[in-house]
Structure formats: C-alpha cells, structure tokens
C-alpha cells in the first residue's frame, strides 16, 4: 500500500512485483533473479501473490507477498546461506508468537524470534546489508 497525502493507493500485484524487483536489484548485488510463482485473481488485479528468488554471491533472498484488494496481507522475506536461514521477516499468525507485542509481525534471527516494529521490505534489506557486510 502506498500513501500519497490523504490518499491510499491500492497495489496491483504485477506493479508491486516490479517495485520489489527494482528495490532489491538496486540495493543489493543481485547476480540473477527468478519469479518462482505468480498468481493474479481473475476478478481484480489487486489480489494475488508472488514468490521471487534473488541470488547474491553465496546467499539468496526469497520474497513472498500475498495481496488482497490492494493490501499486503501476508509476507515472508528470507535471507538464506547454504540452506540456513540467517534472517526472516514474516507475519504468519502463529500461536507461539502470540506474546510478542508486534504479533503477527516478527523477525527470526538465528534460532530466535523477535518482535518486528514497522515491518517493511526496505527494513529487511537494510538488515541484510548489515549481515552481508560482516
């Protein structure tokens, strides 16, 4: 969802996918990317989902977003190195995270789960950059 002044722009699935690809390929050294799956509702272009993989040097980033009537209702962003998830942001409404103040939004780092304030792909990429630099 984008906000312009008092107006909220409802996202179209394909446009959001293009935005995600542009954002990640300009922020990180992406060697290749592939849209693994995309589905857009026949009823309206603002409902659907996509899965994309972005390859970096020795890691890859998996992005999933599900949109409903122009809003991102589900997301999972993962940074993976050698089959190990280094970082994940997601909003799976899992019972085990119910005590987190930001439920459903949470952040996995290593084997631990943390609250996730102001979740966004932008924030996830910033944290990825910090991890990749170390």
């Amino acid at each position: 969802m984008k906000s312009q002044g008092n107006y909220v722009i409802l996202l179209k699935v394909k446009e959001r996918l293009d935005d995600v690809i542009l954002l990640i390929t300009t922020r990180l050294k992406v060697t290749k990317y592939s849209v693994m799956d995309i589905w857009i509702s026949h009823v309206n272009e603002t409902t659907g989902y996509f899965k994309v993989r972005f390859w970096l040097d020795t890691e890859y980033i998996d992005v999933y977003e599900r949109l409903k009537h122009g809003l991102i209702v589900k997301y999972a962003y993962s940074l993976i190195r050698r089959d190990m998830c280094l970082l994940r942001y997601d909003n799976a409404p899992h019972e085990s995270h119910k005590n987190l103040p930001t439920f459903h939004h949470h952040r996995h780092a290593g084997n631990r789960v943390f609250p996730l304030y102001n979740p966004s792909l932008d924030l996830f990429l910033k944290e990825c950059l910090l991890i990749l630099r170390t």
Partner: protein
Amino acid sequence: MRQSSLVTLAEKYLQCLNDVLSRLRKYEKKYGMPTEEFIKKWKSGKIPEPEDHDTLVDFMNWEEDYELFLEITRKLRDIVESQREA
C-alpha cells in the same frame, strides 16, 4: 447490475475459484490433510511454524486461499440469490 455484466462477473469468480480449488487440492495432497484440518491445526498452533521458507509460504498461502475460497463462494451465492429475487 445488468444481466451481461453479472454473467461476466460470475464467470470471473468461477475462474478464480477453479485456481483456488486447484491449489487447495495441491496443498492437501502435499501435506496429507484436508484443508479444514490444516486450518484448525495451523490456527491453534498445533502445527509448528516451519523453519523452511517454502513450507512457511505454502502454509500462509493455504490459509489465504481458504479465506478466498470462502469469500468467492459467498459472492457467487449472492449473485445466484439476486437472480432468484429478480
């Protein structure tokens, strides 16, 4: 709404329903349980949150597809009922 637009809309809902049902069947086969059972277990936390990204995404999509299935069937029922009343 005009009859022709209503038919077009119903056709779009049916195409959408076909896609959603096909994904629900795929998940049921892959994870070996009916959708209703998955939804109950997933929502109550009886299924642990998967560590694997792809499995997590399947579960999140499965849940959303079930919601969409309910929404579409409701809309189609509304269309049929509006035609009965007309």
